[in-house]
């Protein structure tokens, strides 16, 4: 039991931190521009595919550095020539634009890279077991993933709270007009933040690609979960996104690791249902079975009872 608990925690943390790298960019973009970027996970996928192509010629490490830059520049260009234009038509138009963008990126990835899964491998230097516990290895690469994500969190926190640019960004979030009046180029800041956010998503893709498989559906799998995290954590709150990411990661991991189901719950109350009961499907539910939909359940509950999210302050 202990071994399952320890590994479930480790797995949850790895997933949670990975989700955070996506959620961080998304929540920054949201708090600045007020637009929930539906295509965010698509940039994550682009990161993985770019890094895969680069790694074929220059190895993993070059891909790690260059792919997020490519994705970031692409993101900035899309903001400059697409999103900014749509901005005039209102928030719904923006949301719909990113929705269409997600669709287009997925199709483009299939166009350029094909539909098969890609053989994107982690670097040989990290191809060893960091430690072995109860017969299961924890690979060094997963350790590396944790290190990168924690590094990003600390770095982001430092930039946003301790540097001049961070202060300008924070000001632009709450008082864009005042910041513009002070002589700062707000559109440029927006473009920069969008680029940085997408680059972060790209970086997440680069490091997740080798372990979570690089295939055209990888964005869809993560897309809506990242949304859920940002909303649960509180729109615009970096710390909230961090907590919510870990929460969701651990929640899913523990749910899968557990073996309890409705049957056990009913047994506690001494209720028993025949197998041919019309609601047999409901009584037979197990926690691992519904693990992937738990975040959505949480989302609805949070929105009903605390629409601002865990750490959110602002309501539209």
């Amino acid at each position, binding site marked *: 039991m202990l071994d399952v608990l320890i590994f479930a925690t480790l797995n949850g943390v790895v997933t949670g931190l990975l989700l955070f790298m996506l959620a961080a960019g998304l929540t920054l973009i949201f708090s600045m521009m007020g637009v*929930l970027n539906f295509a965010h996970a698509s940039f994550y996928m682009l990161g993985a595919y770019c890094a895969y192509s680069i790694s074929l010629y220059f190895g993993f490490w070059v891909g790690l550095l260059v792919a997020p830059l490519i994705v970031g520049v692409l993101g900035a260009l899309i903001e400059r020539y*697409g999103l900014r*234009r*749509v901005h*005039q*038509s209102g*928030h*719904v*138009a923006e*949301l*719909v*634009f990113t*929705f*269409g*963008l997600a*669709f*287009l990126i997925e*199709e*483009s990835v*299939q*166009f350029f890279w094909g539909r098969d899964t890609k053989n994107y491998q982690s670097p040989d230097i990290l191809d060893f077991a960091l430690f072995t516990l109860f017969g299961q290895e924890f690979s060094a690469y997963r350790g590396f993933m944790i290190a990168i994500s924690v590094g990003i969190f600390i770095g982001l926190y430092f930039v946003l709270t301790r540097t001049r640019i961070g202060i300008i960004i924070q000001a632009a979030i709450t008082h864009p007009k005042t910041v513009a009046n002070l002589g700062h180029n707000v559109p440029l800041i927006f473009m920069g933040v969008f680029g940085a956010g997408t680059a972060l998503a790209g970086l997440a893709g680069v490091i997740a690609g080798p372990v979570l498989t690089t295939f055209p559906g990888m964005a869809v799998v993560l897309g*809506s979960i990242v*949304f*859920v995290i940002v*909303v649960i954590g509180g*729109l615009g709150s970096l710390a909230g996104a961090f907590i919510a990411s870990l929460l969701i990661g651990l929640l899913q991991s523990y749910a899968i690791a557990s073996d309890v189901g409705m049957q056990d719950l009913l047994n506690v109350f001494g209720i028993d249902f025949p197998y041919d009961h*019309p*609601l*047999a*499907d*409901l009584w037979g*539910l197990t926690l691992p*079975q*519904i693990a*992937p*939909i738990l975040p*959505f*359940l949480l*989302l*609805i509950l949070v*929105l*009903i009872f605390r*629409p601002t999210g865990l750490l959110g302050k602002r309501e*539209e």
Partner: protein
Amino acid sequence: MTLLKKMSVWVAYLAVLLLLPQLFDSILAISVFNQMAIAIVFALSYNMLLGQGGMLSFGHAVYFGMGGFLAVHALLMLETETVHFSIIWIPLIGGLFGLLAAIFIGSFSTRKAGTVFAMISLGIGELIAASSLIFVDFFGGEAGISGDRTYGPTFFGIDFAQNVEVYYLAAGWVFISTVFMYLFTQTPAGRMANAVRDNPVRAEFIGYSARHVRFISFCASGLFAGIAGGLFALNYEFITEENLNAATSGRVLLMAYIGGLGYFIGPIIGAVLLTLMNSLLSNYTELWMLYLGILFLLTVMFLPRGFAGFIMMHQLAWVRGKLRDLVVPYLMTGIPALTFMLSLIALIELVHAEAESLHIYGLTLDPSLEGTWIVLVVIAAAALYGTRRSLPQLRAAWHSANHIPDEER
């Protein structure tokens, strides 16, 4: 518009609906018309939410699917003779169940509009789609459930075995639904929905609960989505999980948006356009989804009011009788723009064709020849240049057609 004029629009609509299968009577054409009929009701119901009520939903397929599932269960009951009625009422059963689902979900989701509403709809959509795979008894797992529409009493001797018979039934329901959805926009509830969409605070000041108004629109929208689901069940005689998942929700958003949100006719245009793309284009190119994505993004960027909005832009010029002045500038820009698009599509297909020769526009292109690529790129570049050169003239013509000179005032 006078009442007579209004009535003639409706009569024309009904006539088109009824005459279509007379003009095109192949099995494929009937199949496409059936799809269109379903899509029109579904897209119109979505527009009640987003276009008229300002509620962006990412889970509208839930009501469509729920209506459809109950409709198929009703068909199964007819088959086992548990109940006895003509299948022409099946869409209504779907609609009522859609309404029921909307009442339940709307009771907590319509409290807020905007992002909160959008996120709740997303969550519920995912939740129901996932549950549909878990509760096999009601939803039938990934294979769905299937019924037979030929049971129950016949309707004036029609047993609805043939698709064309179902089309006429669907056309009837489409017409009735369209009329009622239009009438809804004219009721105080419909008008208030617009007010709440534009400014909920002011709407509350004049004594309306924004939440209540949203709830009513939401329920009405669920009702018509359920009717569309019931039509789906009648046409295909089965329904599966994919009919209530996020992809279906996304498609209806696409339809309504491309067609034009602000206009009542917009979703109808979008539904027709997307059905044609989905059922016909996909047989000519594997890349149709790519083109659909591009079309969608271009629409959002350049036609924020959709195709209906684009048509309505010409109203002033039409009224002033200046539409004729626009024809030549449109052709001047349109022909090179079309050439550019077509050569771009040829290039994309050529990249995709890899080594094989490509048959396109009645030509055969060989990707291994460098000349093919050079010629296509030159054509595309020239066409782009032509488009850009002629744009200012188009703008000027547009301006003069729509700008009322001082002496006319």
